[in-house]
């Protein structure tokens, strides 16, 4: 029996070949680059966590070691300012300490995410805890910022005097310690964003 093999036109066979190679390469591409991208995101997350530890710890220590004693003294009072005197600053130090402790404890999870790309459950947990810790840190930082603002400017209506004019170095120290905290807040935002992107990558 003579089986006639119909000839494909050259353009048809070329199109078939192109489709085959394209779909093959796209499959290979998706299986190779997605774990690579996720790993890069996890490594970046780990680095940002380390930076946030430095920021929060630095802020806590800077605020916690502020005190200033003015050189003049009256018969009854010595003019001394400490971070203890204002409860919001105590809250700031405590919040920064808690957040830096949480960050240290979450470093193993971050390393686990670098090693295993498919660890979605722990990533969701980390996103939630990062959000909670960011809220705690932001509330502490903004409370301290509000008091620092009042210390700098005072308030005429409520008759609150600007304390910074007397306690110069105390004011400088407490203003500077806010910077590390605010930087850590921004790092937290970026970390949540990175975890979200890593979660949303499709798996085949």
């Amino acid at each position, binding site marked *: 029996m003579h089986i006639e093999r119909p000839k494909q036109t050259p353009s048809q066979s070329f199109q078939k070949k192109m*489709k085959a190679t394209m779909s*093959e390469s796209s499959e290979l591409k998706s299986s190779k680059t997605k774990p690579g991208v996720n790993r890069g995101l996890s490594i970046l997350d780990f680095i940002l966590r380390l930076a946030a530890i430095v920021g929060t710890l630095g802020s806590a220590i800077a605020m916690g070691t502020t005190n200033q004693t003015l050189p003049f003294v009256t018969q009854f009072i010595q003019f001394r300012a400490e971070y203890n005197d204002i409860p919001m600053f105590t809250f700031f130090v405590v919040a920064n300490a808690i957040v830096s402790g949480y960050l240290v404890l979450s470093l193993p999870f971050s390393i686990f995410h670098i090693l295993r790309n498919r660890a979605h459950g722990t990533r969701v947990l980390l*996103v939630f805890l990062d959000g909670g810790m960011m809220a705690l840190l932001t*509330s502490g930082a903004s*409370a301290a910022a509000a008091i620092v603002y009042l210390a700098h400017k005072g308030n005429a209506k*409520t008759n609150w*005097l600007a*304390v910074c004019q007397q306690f110069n170095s105390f004011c400088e120290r407490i203003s500077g310690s806010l910077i590390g905290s605010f930087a850590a807040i921004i790092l937290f935002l970026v970390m*949540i964003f990175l975890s*979200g992107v890593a979660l949303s990558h499709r798996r085949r």
Partner: protein
Amino acid sequence: MKNAESSAINVASETTNSGPIGKKKSTTPLLAAEVPIRPDRGTHRMKRGLAIFDIVLRIGALSSALAAAATMGTSGQTLPFFTQFFQFEASYDDLPTFQFFVIVMGIVAGYVVLSIPFSIVCIIRPHAAGPRLLLLILDSVALALSTAAAGAAAAVVALAHSGNSSTNWLAVCNQFGDFCQQASGAVVGSFAAVLLFLLLILFSALSLKNAH
């Protein structure tokens, strides 16, 4: 043209009539890779449930943010006594921190209103990862903003309630009781909005987890 069509039909008939020896299926693994993987009904329903709960939480966050902004914005008290030159009054204008609070809560409430359409899109298409990721990021920004406003206002309200002896700041609430109460209520409302934003972030992350 005609030749090409007829040749295509010939090829098909060739494979079906290939006989007992060559009866192999025309395997096309490359075509199979192009078929999208269908997710099962279970995750579909769960994600739709999460999306509906997400809208409910969003409306709750909107109402608490709006209530906080409105309560602080309308807080004001005029004391019934006055001297020859002053009338003793206090309103949220007098403290820049409270002004910051009202503005930021207004911005957050506006953001929640604008994000409701995205949430509706997520209900209609539960497996779309793009809007979910956008909502996750913007919700975390809104969380940061509202927590900042809440923390700052809470600090000033606490200061107004108890004063501070070291800095010689007097407790203003002893005179302006109503004003302090309204401000405290507004702060409580904004902390409720903070909690709702945190839950919204959790739900967005859960929905993204099974995004396929």
